[in-house]
């Protein structure tokens, strides 16, 4: 069959036509499907639904923009081959500043029209909706998902080229409203006669570059876009879950080692300090055995004192090697009463944990010292008790670990929060109040 001959059920490639205004060649890609085509030379909007290609109007575009996706190029997105056939730049004015974004019309002769929108290199694949989203307290509900009101604005078309399913013109204005549930968003465009809904889905620019095989480098997105999925979504939860699991593990280890710890009393003895004497009075304890290899030793001193202090210079001495571990501890306890009531300061007991003491036979050398001036007649003798425990279970390092492990989840939570606040900083606070979708009431 001669391919040039028209045959039933077959649609040939559209022929090149000439702009009725300036005579430039126009390639109609979606002839008949597109309603309006815009001459790229003279910006005339031409009625493409009419074989006579009538000019709808000629508007002077305020700017000229080269589309990143050349019109006529094809790419496969969401499993369907699309051809870019139209492009427009739209803008909204907020507090005297114009914000521009770009929209591409995608067309497939069977599937119809889709759109790509781009703002600051953030891309959305947009599908027209036939279903009306239902209004809710905070925005909209569509397909059982809640969308939060984000922004309302009046959008103007600043530049347009190619084919559109409607007679788009430079200067065309619509009222837009956006609702987000990352990575999706719902948008409405309202004109006098019609409200059109669409759903956008955030799509990385690199995916578009790959689909349309664009040669230019794909520019990275700037800032946070309204429906950009947060990179922290899920990570906040998983970091806290990880934290919880680590805490549980630490607690298990803590209980395990506490159970396994010897925790054995090796010395429990009462002594007396005589503060009246000024003579140095050092003495040594009985010998005791520290079992095992390296482990901790806790020395606890309880002195029966009141309004005084006792300082103990001590040394834990290995009888066999002569190795000495010197340390000093002070026990002080004061109490009284004033206008605020009774008070106490210090305590009668002091604990010290000596780490890494090898096993062997040891004795403790003790040299108590107290305030002789205060001793006069107050309390001539101070009884005190020394207890030594080998292999105390320890807890502090586990709690320190739990505390340090808090840093990553807190950091992630802060980052996630700051991402969301960047997103919502672009929203307009009045947006929430003007969210009426299908329930727009009769005046």
């Amino acid at each position, binding site marked *: 069959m001669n391919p040039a001959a028209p045959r039933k059920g077959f*649609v040939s490639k559209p022929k090149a036509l000439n702009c009725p205004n300036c005579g430039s060649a126009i390639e109609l890609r979606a002839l008949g499907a597109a309603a309006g085509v815009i001459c790229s030379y003279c910006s005339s909007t031409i009625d493409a639904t009419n074989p006579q290609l009538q000019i709808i109007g000629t508007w002077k575009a305020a700017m000229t923009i080269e589309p990143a996706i050349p019109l006529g190029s094809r790419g496969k997105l969401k499993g369907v081959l699309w051809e870019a056939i139209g492009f427009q730049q739209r803008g909204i004015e907020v507090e005297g500043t114009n914000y521009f974004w770009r929209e591409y019309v995608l067309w497939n002769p069977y599937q119809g029209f889709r759109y790509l929108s781009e703002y600051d290199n953030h891309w959305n694949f947009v599908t027209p909706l036939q*279903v009306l989203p239902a209004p809710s307290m905070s925005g909209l509900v569509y397909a059982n998902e809640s969308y939060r009101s984000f922004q309302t604005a009046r959008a103007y078309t600043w530049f347009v080229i190619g084919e559109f399913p409607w007679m788009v013109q430079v200067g065309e204005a619509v009222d837009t409203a956006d609702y987000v549930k990352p990575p999706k968003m719902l948008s409405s465009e309202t004109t006098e*006669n019609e409200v059109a809904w669409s759903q956008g889905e955030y799509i990385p620019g690199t995916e578009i570059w790959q689909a349309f095989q664009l040669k230019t480098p794909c520019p990275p997105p700037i800032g946070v876009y309204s429906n950009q999925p947060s990179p922290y979504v899920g990570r906040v939860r998983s970091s806290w879950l990880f934290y919880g699991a680590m805490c549980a593990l630490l607690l298990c280890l803590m209980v395990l080692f506490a159970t396994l710890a010897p925790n054995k009393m090796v010395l429990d003895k009462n002594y007396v300090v005589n503060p009246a004497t000024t003579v140095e009075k050092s003495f040594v304890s009985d010998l005791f055995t520290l079992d095992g290899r390296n482990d901790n030793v806790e020395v606890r001193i309880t002195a029966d004192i009141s309004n005084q202090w006792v300082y103990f210079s001590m040394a834990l001495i290995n009888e066999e090697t002569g190795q000495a571990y010197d340390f000093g501890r002070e026990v002080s306890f004061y109490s009284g009463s004033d206008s605020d009531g009774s008070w106490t300061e210090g305590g009668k007991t002091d604990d010290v944990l000596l780490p890494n003491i090898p096993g062997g036979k040891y004795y403790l050398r003790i040299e108590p010292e107290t305030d002789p001036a205060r001793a006069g007649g107050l309390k001539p003798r101070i009884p005190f008790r020394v207890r030594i425990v080998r292999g105390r279970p320890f807890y502090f390092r586990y709690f320190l670990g739990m505390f340090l492990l808090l840093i990553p989840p807190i950091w992630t939570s802060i980052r996630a929060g700051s991402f969301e606040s960047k997103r919502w900083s672009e929203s307009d606070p009045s947006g929430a109040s003007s969210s009426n979708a299908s329930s727009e009431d009769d005046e």
Partner: protein
Amino acid sequence: MSTRNDICSNCGAEIRFRWSGAVQTTCEYCKSILVRNDINLALVGKAADLPIDISPIQIGTEGIFNDKPFQVIGRIVYRYDLGTWNEWHLYFSDGSNGWLSDAQSEYAVSFANSFTDAPPAEADLHRGLTMAQHSVPLYLTVITDAMYETTEGELPFTSYDKEMCRFADFRTNDGRFGTVDYSETPPLLFLGQFVAFDSLKLKNLKEFEGWPNA
């Protein structure tokens, strides 16, 4: 269904009715609009050339809606201020008929229905108006003034004397839709739902040069 054959009273070509309920058809060869009076065909006018049209659907396209097979046997092309759209006349295997609306590749299947509530008066139409029919809450989203651009194939009513029609299109929160056609008195109600192109499993579609068949 029993197909009956007739002869075009203009050019003598064979006219084949696929659907016994058809009231009107268009001669494939000379585009004459033929209206069936009793058993004879009366020539009432000539269909306009089809507009530039690349709908993938054509007379003879077959598909499935709600598990019921259908065949496309006719269409009306409406023109409104932003272009044209197609209402494809469907003949279902169980003998019923319906419409497949194809407006810039947004597809919807609908059926003529009765009003359970009085339709809004034509003068009162405005966007945002709500009504309920058959317990379905419907929101008016667009009012369209359209005219018959042309017709093709078999239709359940005659089109040749119709001029401007006003349509009120209603949508819902769940993908259904309704249209009130004010071209007749009392107005006509069509209720249906939007459909995804792929869900209709259409066969015998048009081919597009340079495009792989969907």
